[in-house]
């Protein structure tokens, strides 16, 4: 018996050793992923981005090229890259930050997303590299969205504006012209509706999509500053213009302007309805431009039939040169990085290289200055770049401006407003409450 007992003890012990030792053993492999402390003089900059090769081949390639170029110029630095898809990226950054393990360089979003990382002292101020010349590369004002109390914590990579894209063929078939005013816009909706065409593709499961509609009404009715001021607490969210904007949303819903079941559809599903000519209009930002210009996977006939127009004026109010939009992802440098100097160097190198190639290779409008005359771009890009040059106001997406928990209230309320679960008054009241709680 005792022999057997010893044997089984041994067996169990072995199992443990296997598990535990196996673990710490293979732990040795991950030295290469730990910032900065490698054998020899080589430093490692850990970089995380959200453009996987499978879905964003060109983005991925540019990033790889930039990394290779950087390593070639800086023989003593290796860049260790990790790629995750959008949602996984956000979740992982969250987990990493709880353990103080943020990558040396990574991607962030502006304003509300960035604020807790700044107040938690996780992101490094980038004023030094901006002041030493990099700042001039950016389109004026784009880095503001990443600035808190005069310090800038992110270097934007994209700049997008939101417009109404429409199917010229459907418009022609129904004898419609591009609407300049909201009244004309409503006529367009009515005509399409009575001819059995779904007027507007909207995927409001994602909620930021409906938010863009609301933002434009707020902008046109209450002026370009009102919504931002309401979010900054300089104005009340219960001001009449913001209530009226919510009413207009419900008017559109009552007119059946949006595709059936929009509150249960993702943006991707809505987009595909627009792209399969099942809906005539679609409000989206310029990140979608490749689909309407250069993307070879989309039939040429469809790409030729897409046009866009600025959101119309409402009752003579508003300025068509005032846009919803703003910078998208930007680069941050971790405050706790062991290789902060190299990380900043890499981030600044990245931004410069990215700006030069983003438009031509990927079709992304970078936040750095682009001269449309120097590049051979599709007409739609030139138009958009002109719009950007003439823009009088750019209102950053409401859910990005707000802090994360207020943003969740906003997004839920958007779904409630569109689904008529909340009246315009309830809608603004919920916002006012959430904003005043901060």
């Amino acid at each position, binding site marked *: 018996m005792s022999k057997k*007992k010893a044997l*089984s*003890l041994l067996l*169990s012990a072995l*199992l*443990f050793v296997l598990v535990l030792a196996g673990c710490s053993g293979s732990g040795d492999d991950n030295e290469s992923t730990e910032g900065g402390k490698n054998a020899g003089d080589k430093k490692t900059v850990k970089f995380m981005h959200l453009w996987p090769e499978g879905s964003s081949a060109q983005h991925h390639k540019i990033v790889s090229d930039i990394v290779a170029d950087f390593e070639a110029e800086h023989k003593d630095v290796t860049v260790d890259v990790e790629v995750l898809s959008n949602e996984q990226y*956000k*979740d992982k950054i*969250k987990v990493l*930050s*709880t353990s103080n393990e943020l990558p040396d360089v990574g991607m962030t979003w502006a304003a509300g997303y960035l604020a*807790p*990382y700044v*107040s*938690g*002292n*996780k992101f490094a101020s980038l004023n030094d590299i901006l002041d030493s010349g990099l700042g001039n590369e950016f389109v004026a004002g784009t880095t503001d969205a990443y600035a808190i109390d005069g310090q800038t914590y992110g270097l934007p990579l994209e700049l997008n504006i939101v417009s109404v894209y429409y199917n010229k063929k459907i418009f022609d078939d129904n004898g419609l012209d591009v609407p300049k005013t909201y009244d004309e816009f409503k006529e367009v909706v009515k005509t399409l509706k009575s001819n059995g065409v*779904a007027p507007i593709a909207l995927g*409001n*499961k*994602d*909620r930021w999509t409906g938010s863009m509609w609301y933002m434009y009404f707020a902008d046109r009715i209450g002026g370009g500053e009102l919504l931002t001021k309401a979010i900054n607490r300089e104005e009340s969210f219960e001001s009449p213009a913001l209530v009226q904007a919510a009413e207009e949303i419900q008017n559109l819903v009552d007119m059946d302007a949006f*595709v*059936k*079941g*929009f*509150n*249960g*559809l*993702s943006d991707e*599903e809505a987009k595909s*309805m627009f792209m399969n000519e*099942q809906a005539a209009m679609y409000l989206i930002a310029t990140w979608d431009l490749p689909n309407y210009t250069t993307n070879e996977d989309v039939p040429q006939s469809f790409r030729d039939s897409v046009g866009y127009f600025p959101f119309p004026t409402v009752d003579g109010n508003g300025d068509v040169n005032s846009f919803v939009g703003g910078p998208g992802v930007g680069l941050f440098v971790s405050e706790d990085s062991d290789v902060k100097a190299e990380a900043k160097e890499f981030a600044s190198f990245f931004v410069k290289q990215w700006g030069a190639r983003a438009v031509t290779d990927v079709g992304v409008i970078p936040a750095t200055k682009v001269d449309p005359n120097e590049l051979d771009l599709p007409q739609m890009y030139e138009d958009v770049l002109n719009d950007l040059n003439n823009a009088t106001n750019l209102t950053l997406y409401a859910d990005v401006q707000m*802090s*994360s*928990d207020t*943003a*969740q209230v906003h997004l*839920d*309320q958007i*779904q*409630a407003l569109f*689904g008529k*679960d*909340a009246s315009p008054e309830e809608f603004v009241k919920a916002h006012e409450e959430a904003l005043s709680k901060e």
Partner: protein
Amino acid sequence: MKVKKIRGHSRKDVLLLNDMGLNVMNKVMSNKWIIAIYTLPALLLIGVLIFIPLVLTGYYGLMDWDGIGDMSFIGLENYKNAIVDGKFWSSAWHSTLLAFFSTLSLAIYLMISMILASKLKGADFLRKIYLIPMLLSSVAIAQLWIKVFNPTNGMLNYVLMKLGIENPPAWLAEPSFVLFAIFIPILWQYAGFYILIYYAALKNIPESIIEAAKIDGASPLQIAYRIKLPLIKGIVKVTIVLAIVGSLKYFDLIYVMTGGGPNGASEVMASYMYKLAFASNDFGYGSAIGFLLLIITLIVTVIIRKLTATKDEIQY
């Protein structure tokens, strides 16, 4: 120690066997060393990897923490907030509904398993087919059902319109339908899991018992209800607990298909917790919700086990 009847031995033998056997049995089967060797590895694993996180979740629930900066202790504030949080209770209600319907659906699974486990021609083949959906990841299942439920191009509404229903609902967009719409793929996804368990349990019933009943003239229904069901009672209880616990912390399909929407109409406890912790940067509050989820599950499980407990527990 109760004296057990042992078939095939005379009464005298049995007594003899028990006398001697019980002594040895008791000694061997209560050897502390052996018990330790058999349970400690598993206990250690769940202790470190489940219970420490569990305690930490409760602990984070006492904190005001965005998961990024410093945390500060706020006592039971988060738990107090949760008690008056309408959104939390509506998500808890949705989870409860899900648990209720999942438990009901066990009857369907059990019925199908009974049919499959009987000596029906082709039953083996059918059983394999029935288990296919459980092989797929939730990502795939969610995509499939999003397409089924699509209000304009979807299969379901296509069929309904062919049947003459003019304006079938947009299933995932209607607050009043969405929970039921989502329940169908969940029911379908888990069919294989429970059929697999029931099937193995039914196949475990000694053939002789069923043969004996047949000779006594019992109908298939009687055999199923009077003989098979009592014999697999233990497993049925286990599956009830699994269904309830699984439903109360269910997350996958709901998150992909509706994100808890529209406007919280399909929010469940786990998706609410996830949103708070990961999207709203309210990690302290999210942890408190996670901990409450666990407490609720625990209470429900204890109640269920009390309700299903019977005096004649089969313990040989």
